[in-house]
């Protein structure tokens, strides 16, 4: 919630700062600046590059600020770390009171709380030493070394001189003290606003983990093997899907029998999310490579079929007529008119199919795999290695984005006439 408020604040702040700076520096001099109507004119709206850059920076700033990153100087208040102490006043069954001090040592997140000793001091209440984990409450059995025990009727009546009861909380400055139901002390060091690294590790931790895994591997396979296997499965499934789907789509576009036969199957299978097929595919083909490739094949198949069918149906009848009256045979029309004409649609389908396949492979690896990007993050999550999980997600995102960029490049190279006619 606080993170969201920060984000909105930074969004608005950056907007005002950039716009004030710009107004002072230079006015726009392109054609759009001469337009009097820009609200609602879609062509007048361009993605502001400054906003894009700041947007990415803000994500890292918030990430760094809320995780206490060493790379970034400004942090939100962190949890209390170090030594602190408070006194408690113990009242014995006979009404006499004595004070003792509890020394608390709170280590940083992720470090082990080490036990230490203090001199017990005098009186029937003895001083205690306690090592508390950061950011969460722990129970201090103060009377282990006291001469008056709780079972003998001794009870705490004040902390640092301030009265305390079952419903009264006392703030010691570095943490909060409550009494448990049985009268023991419950101490919570100040939590601050920073994230526990188990929830969200600092950026440098993730980067360090990336280099560690890139050089040492994770769970018997190197990082590149994990990612490479995921990619390999996607490519295998996609190629198989395209090899079957494109001819099937052509046949559906060219023959009434094929269209009639496969229409119900395609239209039924198309809206079924590939993830819903995972259980069945595992039952039929097992959890190993065959199962995954069959799943990806099914994910790509319907998309490619529909794309190829649309490509054939979309051919302008004038082109077909022209080719016939230029003396082309049916096969030549297929080869020189229908196939090239359907390429733009097939490429659009291929882009969608690659995206779906990439998403499906990660999900399939979450379910069962020995290697792969999805397996890496699910295995890491079981050991609460959040840095690996985040690193894996980032790598999955980068690869998915990379695939789409490559497909777009291939598209503009292979079908430059797309959208022209």
């Amino acid at each position, binding site marked *: 919630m606080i993170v969201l408020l920060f984000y909105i604040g930074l969004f608005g702040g950056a907007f005002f700062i950039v716009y004030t700076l710009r107004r002072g520096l230079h006015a726009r001099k392109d054609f759009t600046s001469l337009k009097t109507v820009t609200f609602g004119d879609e062509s007048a709206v361009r993605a502001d590059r400054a906003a894009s850059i700041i947007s990415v920076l803000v994500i890292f700033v918030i990430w760094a600020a809320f995780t206490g990153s060493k790379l970034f100087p400004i942090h939100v208040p962190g949890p209390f770390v170090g030594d602190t102490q408070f006194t408690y006043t113990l009242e014995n069954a006979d009404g006499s009171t004595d004070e003792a001090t509890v020394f608390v040592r709170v280590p940083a997140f992720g470090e082990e709380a080490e036990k230490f000793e203090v001199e017990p001091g005098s009186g029937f209440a003895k001083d205690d030493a306690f090592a508390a984990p950061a950011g969460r409450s722990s129970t201090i059995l103060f009377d282990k070394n006291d001469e008056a025990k709780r079972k003998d009727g001794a009870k705490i009546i004040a902390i640092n001189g301030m009265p305390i009861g079952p419903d009264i909380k006392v703030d010691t400055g570095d943490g909060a003290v409550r009494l448990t139901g049985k009268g023991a002390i419950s101490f919570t060091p100040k939590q601050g606003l920073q994230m526990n690294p188990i929830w969200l590790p600092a950026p440098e931790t993730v980067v360090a983990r990336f280099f560690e895994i890139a050089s040492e591997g994770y769970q018997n396979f190197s990082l590149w093997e994990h990612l490479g296997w995921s990619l390999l499965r996607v490519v295998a499934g996609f190629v198989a899907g395209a090899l079957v789907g494109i001819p099937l789509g052509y046949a559906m576009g060219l023959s009434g029998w094929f269209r009639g036969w496969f229409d119900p199957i395609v239209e039924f299978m198309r809206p079924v999310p590939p993830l819903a097929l995972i259980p069945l595919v595992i039952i039929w083909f097992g959890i190993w490579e065959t199962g995954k490739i069959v799943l990806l094949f099914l994910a790509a198949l319907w998309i490619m079929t529909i794309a190829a069918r649309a490509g054939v149906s979309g051919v302008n009848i004038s082109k077909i007529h022209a080719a016939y009256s230029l003396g082309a045979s049916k096969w030549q029309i297929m080869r020189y008119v229908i196939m090239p004409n359907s390429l733009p649609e097939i490429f659009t389908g291929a882009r969608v199919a690659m995206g779906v396949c990439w998403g499906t492979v990660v999900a399939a690896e979450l379910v069962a795999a020995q290697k792969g990007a999805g397996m890496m993050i699910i295995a890491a999550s079981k050991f609460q290695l959040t840095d690996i999980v985040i690193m894996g997600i980032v790598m999955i995102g980068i690869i998915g984005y990379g695939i789409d960029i490559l497909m777009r490049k291939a598209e503009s190279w292979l079908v430059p006439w797309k959208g022209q*006619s």
Partner: protein
Amino acid sequence: MPELDIVDLSMRFDLPNGSSVQALQDVSLNLKEGELMSVLGPSGCGKTTLLNIVAGFLAPTSGKIELNGHLVKGPDAERGMVFQKGALFEWMNVRENVDFGPRMKGMPKAERDQISGHLLDVVGLQDFKDKAVYELSGGMQQRVALARCLANEPDVILMDEPLGALDALTREKMQGLVLKLWKETGKTIILITHSVEEALLLGERLIVMAPRPGRIHREYNLPFAERGVNADLRDVKKSEGFAEMRDEILSMIWEMEEEIMGRTEQAG
């Protein structure tokens, strides 16, 4: 001696709702080699249907078409077609579009290059031969379409409003080009158009068709195409008889349109 014989052609379309449309009724025509005929008529008079039947894309309900004594049964390279737009192959460059027909016949590359080189010269696109067709203007694209059709050496060229999508200036230039190609190649040409002026300029013979049922209403033999071969088309339009002819045909088509409107109003 290529000769196109259209004999008692009728075409009836049966609509899904049970009614039917008589697109053509008893249309008979005879074209000699090298004749340039334009076909004019209000929309719905069946002129495109007629052209599609001659091209072989449609089979007539009754009647027949003979070219050089043999029956027309389907599309063939002997009858080339130029479309209004959208019939060029965007995945081929200008030259590949032009030599598509010869290439499909398996003609060797050297010969094909000679043909396409010559035709690109004729239509004035030599400098654009390696360009993609979608980079060309509409007028240039229609020049490519004309060259592509001619490269195949058809006996008859069928033009379905080939200049209909062009702006007025380009259109005038292209009309000159069509006349020039007609004279140079001596091809038999049937040209369908919406424009009365174009029909007069580009028709040794002019057929005016009437709708519902589609039929030949009037036929003219005109001197303007012959005049236009060696003269500026704007001068032809000012020449003797052109304005009167245009007015006569315009009022004829107006009357047909009004009749159609009247009939629909009565029916309504």
